[in-house]
Every structure is written in C-alpha cells, then in structure tokens.
C-alpha cells in the first residue's frame, strides 16, 4: 500500500513538473542551459506589441512568437542583452521595454515617485511640528492668568470643604 502511495505521489510531482515547464520554450532547442535561462529572462522583460500587457513569453500572438524566437536565436548566436534590446527597440520602439530606459524624457517616470515621497514627508513633517508647538504655547500662562486660576482653584476647594 505504502509503495503504491509513494508511486502515485512521485507520478503527481513529475506530472506537475512537466506542466510547469510546458512553456513555448520547449519548441526551441537551446545550445545550453545558460542560454535558455538568459533568453527566457530577457523575453520576460520585453513586451508584446500586440497584446499589450503580456510579455513575449506569455503571449500567444504570432508577433510575440516571432519576436520570442528571434530573441532565442540571438542569444544562441552569442549576442549580448544590450544588442538584443537594441534590435527590438530599433524596430518596435521603447514601447517593448517593460523597464523604461533612464533618459531625459523618462526622468519624471523614474524620479517622480521619489519627488512625491519627499513632498509627502515634507508635508507630514510640517504638520507634526505644528502640533508640537501648539500645546507648548497653551501651557505657558501669563502671570495674571496663573493668579486667576489659583484663586479659582482655591475657591472651588473652599466650596468642596463646606
């Protein structure tokens, strides 16, 4: 019985493993394992021009398939990531990059969040400082006020004693 369960478990694990690997990669024979990893990672970073929110590996569209195979071929031909990205952007524009380049026109994109964070922090800081100052001011009473307060307290105590 135990053997049967162990066998079934192994089978399930093996089958699951196969399902995980059933990506379009299987149709292409890479020269080496490193090439495959590099190519697939790169294709994940490139966006399909047709079905706009999928990367080249996820998408089933013919364009994505062509581009994906092109990336694989170029990796196997020993081209660097930069060369491949250059190849893609010279044809399909910066649109295909999921991670935009750091350029003057993308500065807002890259630095905007930090600027907003700074603004937020500045505003928060201002509020906190204001709140700290306000109670301090109200605590320092003028001498006359203090006298008046003392008298009032005395009176109320006198009333209580009665």
């Amino acid at each position, binding site marked *: 019985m135990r053997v049967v369960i162990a066998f079934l478990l192994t089978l399930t694990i093996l089958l699951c493993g196969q399902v995980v690997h059933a990506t379009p990669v299987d149709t292409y024979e890479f020269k080496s394992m490193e090439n495959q990893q590099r190519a697939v990672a790169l294709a994940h970073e490139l966006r399909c021009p*047709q079905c*706009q929110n999928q990367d080249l590996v996820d998408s089933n569209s*013919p*364009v994505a398939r*062509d*581009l994906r195979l092109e990336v694989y071929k170029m990796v196997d031909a020993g081209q660097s990531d930069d060369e491949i990205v250059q190849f893609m952007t010279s*044809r*399909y*524009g910066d*649109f295909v990059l999921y991670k935009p380049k750091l350029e003057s026109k993308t500065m807002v994109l890259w630095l905007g969040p930090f600027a907003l964070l700074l603004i937020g922090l500045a505003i928060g800081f201002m509020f906190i400082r204001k709140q700290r100052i306000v109670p301090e001011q109200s605590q320092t009473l003028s001498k006359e006020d203090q006298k008046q307060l003392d008298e009032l307290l005395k009176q109320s105590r006198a009333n209580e004693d009665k």
Partner: protein
Amino acid sequence: MKKLVLFIPLALFLVMGAFLYKGLYLNPQKLESALEGKPVPTFELETLEDPKKMITNEDLKGEVSLLNVWATWCPSCKYEHPFLMRLARQKLLPIYGVNYRDERALALREFMREGDPYTANIYDKDGRLGLDLGVYGAPESYIVDHNGVIRFRYAGPIDSKVWAETLLPMIEELQLEASKDQSS
C-alpha cells in the same frame, strides 16, 4: 504666503486631472513607429506574382509610395481592399504590397476574385521584412518618400476619412518635396 501653500494640493490635483482626462481619449493601441525618419530596411525578396523576379528596397526609391502590409488571413485587410482599389484607379502614387506571412496561392486567388490594387507585391512569407518594419498586426501602411525613407506609419485599415485627413495631405507635401528635389 501660508495661504498659497494650502493651494498646492489643489494645483497638483488639477494638473493630474488634466493629464488623466487627456489619457481618456488616447488610443493605447496606437504605437509610434520607431522607423519613421529611417530608410526602409534592406531586403531582397521574391515578388508575389513571379517567384523568379526579385524586388529590393532600392526599387522603392525615386517616387513617393505607399507600402501596404497585408495578408489573406487578415479580416481588416479585406475591409481595406476596396478602398485600395479605388486608390489604385486614381493613380496618385505607386502602392507596394507586402504580402505578410501568407501563402502565394491564396494571395493570388484573392487578386483574381477581388482585384489587384498593387504596383508590385513583396512576398514576405516568413515575416522577416515585417519584423524589420516593426509590424505588429496587419494591415499597416507606410508612406515612403522618394529617397526610400519611411515618413509615416499608419496601423489599421485605411478608409476615406483617414486618407483625406491624414495620409493624402502628407503625400501631397512629400510629392512637392520630391519634385523640388528633382528640379534642383
């Protein structure tokens, strides 16, 4: 001064609102072509009509032309076809077809049935020229100037509205430019 500071959030909100409002009317499917201003990629491919005859990017030079990427499997191309036929009859400019990832026999049969608006057809069976052009879906049309430089890309079927509003004015301007170049 202090009161002005209080208006900063409102100003930020208005600026963002303006951008987002504009974003509502943008078409995210419309991509800018990376090839505008660049020469047509070099190619040497068979013509669709005759496998023995080759056509290259040099053949596109000399005249302002329209390069139209199409295929028989593409429904929008069928929609566009009658307009291209009308255009061909006007003889304003040569229309070159790029038969993109298609079968020769199917494409030729399509011409027999529906007519052939093209001056010549490039048979791009494996889609290599399409890839070099940055084609992401047929039909796509490129305006190529007399020096063989891509000046404009239009993705989607051409109809009389797009033609009259966008493409024709641009073509007329380029043809003027070409005639100036030739006379000088």
